[in-house]
């Protein structure tokens, strides 16, 4: 599904003094809300203490709350799950617009494939993203990101300067290093990392791919895992979550960004992404048609078990 640029943004790019990305986002949001094309625009705003948080804009007058900066490291596609149902009996499913980075846009394709959202009910304000930061440091995911323009968008927000995609970093360097450790070393590493987990489930809440009504971690019948704050339970939770995202993770690292205990959750996801890429040549969210590898099969293949 190819994106269509709006007239408004095209005229903006022709202008020698290109408006800032923030101004372009506000402009796009204003256009959508004034048209009545969307019920809500989901974007980033700054809270009273200066930190970035999601913003839900319902009125065109409020679009100036929207911001964009290097610290916008949440995946806003997660919030589309709140807009999947009609607002009232007999009413249509509402249309929303979301501000999406290239990694977030892949989640849109994933959710379309999984029939969670309809393409025409979600307007994607795609960002030409030069990478974001976490705690003031460039995020690991952004250092090797080879994608600067979203795979799907309705309006493209163009960067002020030149945004280059030529990143020569090896995306799986740290994974390969861990693979060279002995199993005991890896176990001790993960034991010390998982031990910090407080099971707040922020990783799950921040993830666009985690949308089960009832999570395995909280399910009582069958009672998969207890609520104890012990290492086996934490280990179970993180392995479960990583596996449920196998072949579905878009690599936005929102889970790691929101983790209050700084657990390197992206390592688990990237390990699986690496294997999925090697085994099935699949990358999540390229298009809304291709099925993730675990939901399909090839009778001819012989995998090393």
């Amino acid at each position, binding site marked *: 599904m190819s994106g269509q640029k709006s007239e408004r943004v095209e005229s903006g790019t022709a202008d020698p003094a290109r408006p800032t990305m923030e101004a372009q986002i506000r402009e796009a949001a204003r256009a959508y809300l004034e048209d009545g094309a969307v019920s809500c625009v989901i974007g980033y705003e700054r809270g009273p203490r200066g930190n970035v948080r999601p913003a839900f804009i319902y009125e065109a007058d409020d679009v100036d709350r929207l911001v964009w900066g290097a610290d916008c490291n949440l995946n806003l596609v997660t919030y589309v799950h709140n807009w999947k149902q009609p607002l009232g009996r007999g009413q249509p499913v509402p249309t929303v617009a979301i501000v999406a980075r290239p990694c977030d846009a892949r989640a849109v394709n994933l959710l379309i494939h999984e029939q969670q959202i309809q393409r025409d009910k979600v307007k994607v304000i795609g960002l030409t993203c030069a990478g974001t930061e976490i705690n003031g440091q460039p995020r690991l995911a952004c250092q090797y990101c080879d994608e600067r323009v979203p795979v799907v968008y309705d309006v493209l927000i163009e960067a002020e300067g030149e945004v280059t995609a030529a990143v020569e970093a090896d995306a799986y360097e740290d994974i390969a290093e861990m693979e060279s450790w002995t199993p*005991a070393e890896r176990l001790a590493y993960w034991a010390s990392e998982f031990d910090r987990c407080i099971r707040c489930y922020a990783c799950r809440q921040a993830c666009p791919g985690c949308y089960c009504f009832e999570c395995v971690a909280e399910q009582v019948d069958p009672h998969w895992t207890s609520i104890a704050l012990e290492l086996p339970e934490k280990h179970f939770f993180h392995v479960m979550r990583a596996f449920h995202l196998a072949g579905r993770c878009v690599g936005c690292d929102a889970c790691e960004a929101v983790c209050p205990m700084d657990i390197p959750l992206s390592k688990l996801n990237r*390990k699986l992404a690496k294997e999925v890429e090697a085994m099935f040549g699949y990358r999540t969210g390229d298009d809304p048609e291709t099925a993730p590898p675990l939901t399909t099969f090839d009778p001819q293949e012989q*995998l090393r078990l």
Partner: protein
Amino acid sequence: MAPEHPFEPKIVGFLCNWCSYAGADLAGTSRARYPQNLRIIRVPCSGRVDPLFVVKAFQDGADGVMVLGCHPGDCHYQQGNYFAQRRYALMHRLLEFTGLEPERLFVEWVSASEGKKFADVTTAFTDKIRALGPSPLKRKRAVGQPSPEEVLA
């Protein structure tokens, strides 16, 4: 003083009702010997075995887990073992990455007519796990078994 008991592994086997469970039956009726360490859980298909069953089995005391299903193309439900193959190919690598020895999870195709093969793979797997020692993922560690932190120190 009682003599120290040598380590005997606990093995959990998820066996497909249509092939390897019947294969285990055949191994018994044809008097093939296989170790008593194996605890068999009958499942309708290898595709029924959620990889989380495996994690839970390890945490609840298994030293090794076997998942035995029908040969590709022979699934009673046409496609269950193909899904299982993809799942376990990934799960194996994930468990390996989180610190489990890869040998502790064993996935193999055993048909209903392969009683001998069933006895062979079960014996070989049990011997391998006996040599490896207790699993590090156990909720209750064996006496004298070091914790993951102690292994690192």
